């Protein structure tokens, strides 16, 4: 895996990858029940406890362990981010590929539909979708996927338009390759590089959007732990219990930073022209 070696050799990519791996590990431990305490159990006599040897990151108003809730929250946020970006990648790639390949009216229709979705600020479109379907985890996944699908369609359509005129595509046609074969084997494989960068950056945006929706009370619903929701719950308690603000805030920031660093590193690796310019 050359790309893994390249990221490991990239100064900021290495940091980003380490953060993501650490988060994945924490999420896995959370999913396996390997948390310091039960994230939903309320230790009533230990309400609003400051960080200590028993409660590493303190407890909340209901006496629930913040560290355990963060581990589950990371997993929850990651599931939403990966699922929504996965769906956006799937549909966006399909739409962009077919629009670019077919051209003409189909291209016009597909891309104008994508333009309509892009006419809304991301959070507002997500709010509209949630207003229609009601808040919840699956709604968040669908809303974030719909918001980011047009971006993938645009990323894929441009290169598809130029790739379909290349000699190797003509050669494949001459050899009698089917349309599906050319699209999947010849075009799609050439789109892996720009898609990889876009997926990584979209994961950062998805984490941000999910946290924002949960913060507004329209994403993950209580008592399930979610990073945005934990921040929202900390709002009225931050003077008495600043750890409720600090730890979830840092966790969200570092998670987004990890994906941003990896995305930038991948862009540097896959497009050396940007190496000098991007931070």
């Amino acid at each position, binding site marked *: 895996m050359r790309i893994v070696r390249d990221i490991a050799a990239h100064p900021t990519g290495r940091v980003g990858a380490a953060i993501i791996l650490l988060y994945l590990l924490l999420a896995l431990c959370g999913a396996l029940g390997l948390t310091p305490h039960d994230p939903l159990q309320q230790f009533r006599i230990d309400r609003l406890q400051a960080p200590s040897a028993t409660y590493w990151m303190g407890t909340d108003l209901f006496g629930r362990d913040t560290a355990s809730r963060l581990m589950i929250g990371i997993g929850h946020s990651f599931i939403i981010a990966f699922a929504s970006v996965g769906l956006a990648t799937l549909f966006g790639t399909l739409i962009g590929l077919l629009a670019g390949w077919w051209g003409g009216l189909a291209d016009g229709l597909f891309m104008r539909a994508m333009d309509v979705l892009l006419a809304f600020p991301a959070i507002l479109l997500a709010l509209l979708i949630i207003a229609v379907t009601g808040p919840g985890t699956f709604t968040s996944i669908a809303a974030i996927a719909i918001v980011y699908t047009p971006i993938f369609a645009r990323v894929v359509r441009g290169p598809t338009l130029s790739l379909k005129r290349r000699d190797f595509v003509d050669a494949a046609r001459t050899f009698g390759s089917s349309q599906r074969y050319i699209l999947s084997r010849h075009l799609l494989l050439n789109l892996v590089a720009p898609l990889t960068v876009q997926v990584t950056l979209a994961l950062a945006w998805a984490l941000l959007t999910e946290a924002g929706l949960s913060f*507004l009370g329209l994403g993950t619903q209580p008592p399930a732990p979610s990073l945005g929701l934990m921040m929202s719950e900390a709002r009225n308690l931050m003077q008495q219990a600043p750890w409720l*603000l600090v730890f979830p805030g840092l966790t969200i920031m570092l998670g987004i930073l990890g994906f941003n660093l990896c995305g930038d590193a991948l862009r540097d690796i896959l497009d050396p022209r940007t190496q000098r310019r991007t931070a």
Partner: protein
Amino acid sequence: MNYLARRLLTFPLILLGVSLLVFFSIRMIPGDAITAMLGTEAGLLTPVQRQALAAYFGIDQPVVVQYGRWLAGLLQGDLGISVTYGKPVLTVILERFPLTLELALLAMVIALGIGVPAGVLAATNNERSTDVVVRILAMLGQSTPGFVVGLVIIYVLSVYFGFVPAMGSFTPLWTDPLANLGQLIFPAVTLGFAFAASVTRISRSAMLDVLSDDYIRTARAKGVPGRSVVWHHALPNALIPVVTLSGVEFGYLLGGAVIVEQIFALPGLGRLTLDAIGQRDYALVQGCVLFVAFNFLIVNLLVDLAYAALDPRIRLGAR
């Protein structure tokens, strides 16, 4: 057909698409519209009253007719009546919009005021410690959600300075400019924080490109002082991508105000949208979303036109 003509021709089509999406999204809400509008009180209606209400709101007609009527009303500025406020939706929106607009503009001024000099500083000190520090700060800024910034600002102000930002009220700029600034400055910093980071990165990248151009080398060879080369020769050209980013980002700032207005309890358009969702005031949700999307589209169109004016390659259809 060149880019500008294509852009202007597709604009009404996209507006139509936006109106279709908003209208039919709201109609997809499960249950009938009367129940959605009145909530539990709808159960008190007799069938005759229900039918009369349906006829009054025009929802007894086929959905295509409803859309046609709604669109015709829209073109005359009629977005319907808000159930919560008992007033025309447009009136309610226009009461709240000045705050959100001012907040977005102030956030933009703060972001540009910090981002452009920081980007220039980093580019002129490329690969030195100043550049590294600016890049790290910009990356951290871009990775920090607005609500984290907002809550940290409130925490630091209240705990370390004993000062709680005014929340829940809004003094218009023309009534008391100082009070207005006092109420909006911290929300604007919150809203503009991530944008400042993006501006820093774009300015740095654009400056690095421009500083390696031949005309800059010529200016240096002619003995133009270094500061003049950077600020008078290089910066105007490096600002073109910043202008584009600012235009696009302005629309996002209007949308992003939802969270900031919620944190600072500001009665703006974002908070109005959120409250409308909570109160199931669908005419208001529809109106708010459409209003912001319309503004977003107009700003994007203006940016594209400005960009085309600045760059002849786009005007001539080379994009």
